[in-house]
């Protein structure tokens, strides 16, 4: 990577949570945000000589992200059965119609502290499912419980985290989480 590319990469890195927030708004499909972020990064670097990285890159990144998000969303959902495609389209329209701007960037900054506030068992569940990549059917099978029960528990954990994030945002953000 040459020096310009390094500068461009650094500039992108400072905004990649912003990119994820935009990606989530235009492509609300599970697991797609990281793909979009990666693709935007690659396209941004490929044309790095066109960008003035000393200026505010957000408008540019928002446009690039929207295009990439819609493209990848179409590619991903096209592989699905028709009924799932309809569901995905409904969710996409719902996400796009949300008037509030994406808050991903601010929220992820406080998530870490909120995770630390979770009860130990909830943290363990997050670790198991999100970090150790064990699916709910496998968790349920091994501990002889219903998959629905595991699903509900995960849902509760996410809601608790959402509440924690909301509270800390009301108090001023990451420093108050």
């Amino acid at each position, binding site marked *: 990577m040459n020096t310009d590319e390094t500068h461009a990469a650094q500039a*992108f*890195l400072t905004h*990649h949570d912003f*990119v*994820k927030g935009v990606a*989530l708004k235009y492509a*609300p499909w*599970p*697991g797609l*945000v*990281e*793909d979009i972020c*990666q693709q935007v*990064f*690659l396209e941004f670097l490929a044309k790095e000589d066109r960008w003035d990285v000393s200026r505010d890159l957000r408008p540019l990144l928002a446009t690039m992200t929207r295009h990439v998000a819609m493209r990848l969303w179409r590619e991903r959902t096209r*592989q699905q*059965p028709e*009924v*799932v495609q*309809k*569901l995905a389209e*409904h*969710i996409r329209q*719902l*996400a796009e119609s*949300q008037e509030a701007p994406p808050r*991903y960037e601010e*929220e*992820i900054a406080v*998530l*870490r502290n909120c*995770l630390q506030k979770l*009860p*130990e*068992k909830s943290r*363990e569940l*997050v*670790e*198991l499912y*999100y*970090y*150790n*990549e*064990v*699916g*709910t*059917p*496998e*968790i349920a099978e*091994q*501990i002889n*419980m219903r998959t*629905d*029960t595991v*699903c*509900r*528990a995960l*849902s*509760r954990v*996410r809601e608790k985290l959402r509440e924690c994030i909301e509270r800390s945002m009301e108090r001023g953000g990451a420093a108050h989480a």
Partner: protein
Amino acid sequence: MPEVDTLIQRYLEGVLSTDEAEALHGLIEANPEDGRRLLRHLEMDAMLRASKGLTNGGMRAPMLLPKRRFTVTTVAGVAALAACVALVGGWIGSGLIESTRSESEATTASVAVLTRAVNLEWESPAMTAGTPLVPGVLKMKSGLAQIEFYHGARVLIEGPAEFELVSAGEATCTRGKLSAQVPPQAKGFRINTPKGTIVDLGTEFGLDVSSGTSEVHVFKGEVELHPVSDAMRSLKEGQALSFAGAPTSLAANPLGFASLGDIDSRTVDSQRMELERWKAKSQILNEDSALKLRFDFQDRLGSRSLMNQAGAEGRNGDGSIVGAEWTQGRWPGKGALEFRNVSDRVRLSIPGETKALTLAACVRINGLDRVFNSLFMSESWGDRKIHWQITRDGLIRLGVAGSGGDRHVDYDAPVFFTPERFGRWIQIAVVFDPTAREVRHYAEGQLIARLPMKDATPLRIGIAELGNWNDSRQKGGVAIRHLSGAMDEFALWDRVLRDDEIAGLVR
């Protein structure tokens, strides 16, 4: 039909059936709040996936490949699941009740590290540079060893010698010559001898404990000598004392002891010789007609492919480097590939099937960050493919997929890659021996596990990767199993190598 929370979870997990998708669609159309609820979960799901890097203290790099969807196949590692089950324990049954279990933290008993080893021949079990040292006796026949104590003292020992590590600030020398550098932070460092104890006050000194003589020479600073049968004496720079019998004053002789300069030049010479020996041995190895693949990692610097050096194979089986960067291998002049990113890998192909198999690699493991850390893995899984890997716990595993619906079998060596072994070059090998109906694991040329074979059906490696894994069956994402470390040699034979042949790979 499951309730909305379960449907949302299944949507997030990518496993909705068409009936469930229809039901979820109906629910969020009928109740917009359920739709908003789904979006909130989707956002939190994305953040939690991204938080993996956060909680591990690493940077959330945007160049990471797509997050995988959680499906049965991506979590096929039963051992990982078993480990996780222990973690979950009574989680659901207790209704998210706090447990009293505390995380056990890894510990080490080491007090020093062998930082350099030049032409060392051991009487006690052999060790290589980089080995952390626990209290105990080291016996050397010849050569030069540099040991750094955790309190800061540095000792150069010339063989033959017998040297016992007592603690991070104390040792006993019963035979041999050594020189010690003791910085102010290590003041008080002690070396015991049969005839007395030397307490260093922040200095450099030499010690000679040979048959019939015990001498201490002070090159810099000051030491205290506590003879067994005499009063304490203080020795200053330029002074020396013979204390085996009646104390006799001498002039300090720095030239009589190995210095850092000596070990530097001898290290360079020694490494050059090691490299030349390895090159000579490589030529012999490459002639073996059963050698199907051998990467010596001596390709042109910056090359994006590894040339198969197996003589009988011509240019068949070259490897394509993806992502991984070149670095230094075991010695200066020896190339290696560093695997550190999710994309780093060497892709290759081993067509056909093989009844017997030996794999050998020289690796430097930096850490075991993932449930499975790939050494050499067939693409995907099933139909007698193999996965040679290290688990997060540090055990070396050869996984062999079943055929025709049979279960796979994991052949596990005991835990080998403990943190003490991270950062060091280590030769490992595994043998699939259908005649003896055994799978054998080796490390540093020594047999470490002998396991009965459950299914001797020939193996079909096919497309495979060094240092990573790809699962062509997955469209939504692939489990991350890349190696965190480096590799500077890899070989594959379609025959069983004997114990002595494997030991010879290391010598």
